[in-house]
């Protein structure tokens, strides 16, 4: 390797940066080396020693390197944790809300953190790039590094402004989404028991008992279950229903599999539904076919109202198979 003043300054700037010395100080140290050797005619490798060792003499500022390392570790930990949450959400709920930026809220937040830190460092590196060039400029070094410091401040301010703008926009979009959001959803498990028609005309009254798991997709205004009915071309009447709350989806699904129907009356409607709670909806109804050979397709319609937003209906598809039902 050539051992010129240029190569010395280049190596020294790298080692100083590696030691965590701040940019303006690096410029100062490089400029002094350059001023000294240009006057004395000495070789910097001889008078200042190896760049790596000389840089160590200025290494007090390495606290900042620790801070940088710690913040990066926190961001990566947040990213991994949210990736895990994201994966377990898919596995457990099979329903992750569509957010304005797409994906899951934790994932978006931690990608945001990582992006912000990386972007900030990247912008700084770009703004800092001409460090050893600054020491070479045949101009006032003080002015040069002041310019550098301003560039750094402007870059940092720009990153902050962009981040604040992005998170503001995202926050507003998220707020809007949550305000309009609460949707009643049903989990995959639906159990149905129906009487088989006793004649081919199918005009006899049928009994349907079913058990489904319902829950709110998002937090939001007060949401109330209003009414339950069976759809399509059947005349139906609702005889009994219950709604039992469970803290987790798995416990609700387990309870639904046990389908212990309450017969105390039509209890489910006018229950206020809470986000984060999973409800087993047991339904007992009777229907009378109005046409011959009715379609086996049947929906349980759960009407609900969201305060300040309006009414909506959840259709729970009932897989009725008269051939197999008892």
């Amino acid at each position, binding site marked *: 390797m050539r051992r010129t003043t240029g190569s010395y300054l280049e190596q020294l700037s790298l080692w100083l940066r590696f030691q965590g010395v701040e940019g303006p100080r690096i410029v*100062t*140290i490089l*400029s*002094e*080396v*350059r*001023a*000294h*050797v*240009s*006057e*004395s005619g*000495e070789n*910097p490798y*001889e*008078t*200042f*020693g190896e760049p790596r*060792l*000389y840089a160590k*003499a*200025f290494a*007090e500022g390495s606290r900042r390197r620790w801070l940088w390392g710690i913040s990066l570790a926190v961001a990566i930990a947040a990213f991994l944790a949210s990736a895990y949450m994201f994966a377990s959400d898919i596995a457990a709920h099979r329903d992750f809300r569509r957010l304005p930026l797409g994906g899951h809220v934790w994932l978006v937040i931690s990608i945001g953190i990582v992006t912000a830190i990386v972007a900030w460092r990247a912008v700084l590196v770009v703004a800092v790039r001409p460090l050893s060039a600054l*020491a*070479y*400029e*045949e*101009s*006032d*070094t*003080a002015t040069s590094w002041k310019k550098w410091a301003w560039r750094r401040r402007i870059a940092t301010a720009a990153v902050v402004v962009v981040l604040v703008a992005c998170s503001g926009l995202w926050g507003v979009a998220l707020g809007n989404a949550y305000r309009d959001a609460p949707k009643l959803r049903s989990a995959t498990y639906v159990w149905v028991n129906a009487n088989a028609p006793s004649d081919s005309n199918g005009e006899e009254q049928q009994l349907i008992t079913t058990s489904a798991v319902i829950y709110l997709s998002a937090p939001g205004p007060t949401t109330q279950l209003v009414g339950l009915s069976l759809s399509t071309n059947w005349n139906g009447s609702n005889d009994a229903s219950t709604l039992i709350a469970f803290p987790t989806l798995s416990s609700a699904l387990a309870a639904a599999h046990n389908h212990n129907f309450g017969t105390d009356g039509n209890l489910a409607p006018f229950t206020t539904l809470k986000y984060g709670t999973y409800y087993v909806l047991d339904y007992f109804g009777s229907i009378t076919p109005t046409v011959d050979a009715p379609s086996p397709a049947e929906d349980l319609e759960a009407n609900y109202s969201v305060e300040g937003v309006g009414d909506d209906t959840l259709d729970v598809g009932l897989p009725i198979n008269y051939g197999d039902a008892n």
Partner: protein
Amino acid sequence: MIDAGWPSEWLRGILPLCVIAIVINGETHGYAIARKLEQEGIPNVKGGTLYPLLARLEHDGLVTTRWALGPNGPGRKLYSVTPAGRVWFRGTSRNWQQFSALTVDLLTDVGKRKHA
């Protein structure tokens, strides 16, 4: 006098005081300090020793710096002694002179005893 320079362990204690003694006479820059040291009989103080020392003195508030354009070439850093630096210099140089007189006495006594 040693052409290659005084032992570095000797210089470690006295060099800050010598540097302040030079800078106290008027604002000057790093290379000029090294040349002046050489003229005063302390040759071969390397840049690798001098500039970290100056940085330490600046950090401790004993000297202050400003940038000026060199006559032909890059800008250079000019050092001057702060009021705190003057106070430090007065106290420390008095102590050093005391220490130095004691060591000189000790060394010359040995010679006298030999001759006696």
